[in-house]
């Protein structure tokens, strides 16, 4: 997926990865995003950290410095508000996807 098409969904994807892997640091999150998309998402790595900080400012995630691995790293976790937001966004996405699928089904014959 092209970078500009991914931009609008980056917040949701970041929330989803944090929910599944928390606590997780920025680099680990980017690696998980790449792995989860199986190379289909063209990720702009430089956009991930500002997105994390904006989510934290919106209190959907929280962060703390962790040095248990011998290296000081800032790790992120989902807040209760973040869990609610993620569920809402996942629902919205499912509805959107169903609507697009339903429309595209009408022209499935073009692919044959």
């Amino acid at each position, binding site marked *: 997926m092209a970078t500009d098409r991914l931009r609008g969904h980056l917040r949701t994807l970041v929330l989803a990865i944090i929910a599944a892997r928390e606590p997780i*640091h920025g680099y680990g999150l980017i690696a998980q995003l790449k792995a989860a998309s199986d190379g289909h998402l063209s990720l702009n790595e*430089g956009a991930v*950290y*500002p997105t994390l900080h*904006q989510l934290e*400012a*919106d209190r959907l995630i929280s962060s703390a410095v962790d040095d248990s691995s011998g*290296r000081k790293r*800032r790790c992120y976790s989902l807040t209760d508000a973040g869990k609610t937001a993620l569920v809402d966004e996942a629902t919205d996405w499912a509805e959107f996807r169903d609507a697009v699928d339903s429309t595209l089904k009408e022209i499935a014959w073009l692919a044959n």
Partner: protein
Amino acid sequence: MAGELIDRYLQDVHGHLQITGAYRKRVLEELRDHLEQASADIESDGLSAQDATEQAIASLGPACEVAGRFVPAATRRTKLLTVLAGIGAVVGLAAVPIANELHADGERVGADVGYSLVWAIGIVAAVAVVGLLVALALRLGGRQRAMRGAFVAAALGLVAIGAFHLANDGSLDAGPGADAWRLTALGAGVVAAGLFLVAIRRTATALAGSALATFGALLLLAVHYALLDQRGPIALVGVAALALAWLWALGTLVRERPLA
């Protein structure tokens, strides 16, 4: 050598960052951690240390682009509080001239003061429009510059209010309040300009900072009307509303500190 590449890249990012203090330090630490880890992982795939570092840096993106994305935006709560504080300020401003009209058993007194207040409100409105236009004009240059332009315009406008009151003989009541009036107007402009400059430096809280400065200046003016000229209880309601607006903005400024 690879370490030098990372140092040079981060220096470049540092040069383009428009955030300050603890938040800037945090961003640079996170980016350094990312680059060191990414370089190590790529190197383990068989590349030289230098090639691995160059690839890690390229994946993160050009320094100016990466740095430009770190522009803390006001949260929804900040915006909501600022709107509420704005309503409080309007209520406060409206109460003061009403009190002026109703003062002394319905007799209109201090018409000059009312006249100057209309001018002051007009200047505030003009400042808001100018600030908006500046923001729109500079939008192509980045949100940060746009906000800065708007705040500078607003700060200049607030100073203009003080200058207007100093220059306008009609607004200077004869009597013991005149000197206090001049000092209040001038002080409001100077304090507002200073606070706007602080707000510009702390962009994450710029909205609350600008509200704090504006409502602080308006509060000083309202206190003057209500207390020095003794306009009665309705003016005190105005002062209370403006004080509430100011405290709201102050509370927001304290709570919405940049990430650290």
